[in-house]
């Protein structure tokens, strides 16, 4: 995929997911990844067995996203527990700590603890992206944790300086993003949900995102926020040096007001179906939302998505939500 929305004519409203996809299968189907991790814990399966099970899950979730009508897909974070620990485990300078609530969800992650200099030790997500790209027929987007979110979800016992710590993480993420681009990844997304709870970090985020995206001149860069109230950041959010922004327009409807201020030339990934509740949105309601957004930012700059990663939903509900999203986008485009 070329740089969508950058000068070329793109027909129709594009659809995508934010990142994660439910790991459990439909009712009654075997849950191979879960069983394999249990077996690995008991010593009756190997790391290679787990990788095979995860490969199979990646194929499955990509096929499902494509069948549902997504124009850009992800690997569903099928190999990850959350957006930070896979990277923290791979970098120098981190240990993995105790369980903590992930934002305001009944979902918990293990908190990275920085105990030394943060350093790049080779790519974390590139092999996974390549595998997904070989599997998919649609473009595959890579998702990285944003540096501010990474720092805020961790404990800094080494730098004891939020800015220094955040920028050290940003330098490692810059290397990861560069490697993804070199592998051919067309879209690199940085997730910055923590920024919504920390508007005071906006200036730091500008620096840190600047560092993380410095070498990215071919891939499209996205900065995505979710869960909180983006209106709190105001239009300053759009001064972050990326090609597009993702907003959760469901968790705090006030965030919609920000869409009126998206600068010309900037893409919007608008989260319009609730990825944290099973209630299915009527297609007509989604059509109305898309039409309004298209009239504000222009259809050529608009991508629609769920409000956040889909892992908060059971598989069948996540799939049904994507089908409705695609149906609504198609209606508007027709």
């Amino acid at each position, binding site marked *: 995929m070329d740089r969508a929305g950058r000068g070329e004519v793109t027909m129709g409203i594009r659809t995508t997911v934010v990142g994660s996809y*439910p790991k459990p299968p439909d009712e009654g189907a075997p849950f191979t990844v879960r069983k394999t991790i249990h077996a690995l814990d008991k010593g009756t399966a190997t790391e290679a067995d787990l990788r095979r099970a995860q490969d199979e899950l990646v194929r499955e979730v990509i096929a499902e996203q494509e069948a549902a009508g997504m124009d850009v897909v992800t690997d569903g974070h099928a190999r990850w527990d959350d957006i930070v620990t896979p990277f923290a485990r791979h970098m120098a300078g981190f240990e993995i700590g105790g369980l903590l*609530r992930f934002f305001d969800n*009944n979902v918990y992650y293990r908190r990275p603890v920085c105990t030394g200099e943060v350093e790049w030790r080779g790519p974390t997500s590139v092999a996974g992206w390549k595998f997904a790209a070989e599997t998919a027929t649609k473009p595959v987007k890579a998702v990285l944790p944003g540096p501010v979110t990474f720092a805020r979800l961790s404990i800094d016992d080494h730098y004891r300086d939020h800015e220094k710590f955040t920028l050290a993480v940003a330098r490692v993420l810059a290397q990861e993003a560069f490697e993804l681009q070199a592998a051919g990844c067309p879209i690199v997304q940085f997730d910055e949900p923590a920024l919504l709870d920390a508007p005071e970090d906006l200036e730091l985020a500008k620096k840190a995102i600047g560092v993380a995206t410095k070498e990215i001149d071919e891939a499209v860069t996205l900065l995505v926020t979710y869960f909180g109230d983006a209106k709190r950041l105001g239009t300053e959010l759009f001064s972050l040096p990326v090609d597009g922004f993702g907003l959760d327009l469901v968790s705090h409807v006030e965030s919609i007001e920000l869409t009126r201020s998206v600068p010309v030339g900037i893409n919007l990934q608008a989260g319009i179906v609730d990825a944290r509740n*099973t209630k299915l949105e009527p297609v007509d309601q989604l059509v109305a939302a898309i039409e309004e957004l298209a009239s504000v930012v222009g259809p050529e700059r608009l991508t629609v998505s769920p409000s956040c990663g889909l*892992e908060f939903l059971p598989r069948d509900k996540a799939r049904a939500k994507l089908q409705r999203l695609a149906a609504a986008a198609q209606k508007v485009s027709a």
Partner: protein
Amino acid sequence: MTKSVDLPGPGLWTTSVGSFPKPDYVVEARGKYARKEIGRDELKELEKRATREWIEFQDSLPTDVVVDGEMYRGDMVAFFAEELPGLEIGGLVRSYGNRYYRKPIATGPVGREHPVTVEWWEYAQSLTEKPVKGMLTGPYTICDWSFNEHYDTRRDLVLDLAKVIRDEALDLERAGARFIQIDEPAASTRMDELDLVIEAMHIVTEPLSAHTVTHICYGDFQNAYPKMLDIPVDQIDLEFANSDYALLDVFAEHPFTKFIGLGVVDVHNHALEPVEEIAEGIRRTLKYIPADRMFVDPDCGLKTRKVEEAKKKLENIRAAVDLVKDEL
């Protein structure tokens, strides 16, 4: 001012937060029941046996306020969702790591057709002279840990759930429960909804004369305190061991005005806390809260530990409390 509690002794009473690990024979039987290899009655007999064993163990320590150990409950929200009209058990979602749960869905007006916990409470109380705590999940937590397809707002769902839990609490009280715990682990999730937690708890506890307790965990306590003290219960039960008693610094600024449930052993750690370490934690806390307003217990439910680990932790709590009581 907080009312006094109807228990013998100078204070430092021992109790538990709620759940205990299920012995292997119950875990196996629950699996067989799920696969329809055994019937409900056969499972229930084994759950009763395990309940009896846990009560005997608590009495052997002894324990001042006993729990039934929740041998018959899987998940603390799903247990109620299975029994209450308006709530259905939904599909699998991940909680953390490789752990998944069936997240309930509110699909209609929430109500209650019959008491949900009273029969088990009566059974447990018939086995011991010590008071058995009634154990309920709070309305805010049931809402927060469920999907909502029916109600226009979270508040509407929480307030309906509050009436259901109040009716259950009243039935427990009528059956003879003098201690009723209404768990709200989710209370510390969103500071902007703490008022809703308080409003809902008021509905639950207003008509009760029993000693009421709420347990809160995984939280942003620094922000939730001291407002947390406005939750209308006699006692708040909190985790101390897993944060090395960091909350005490907060109590130094704003006095803790209720009975405390002092969590003194980490439930997510295999390591057994030594008696002296637990005793020191109790001594540190006594600088802020007097003995006659202090219950001592584990940080949280012990269900994720092995049976032997849980028993050893409870034995050490008993020994530490006896040690400190001698110093009073």
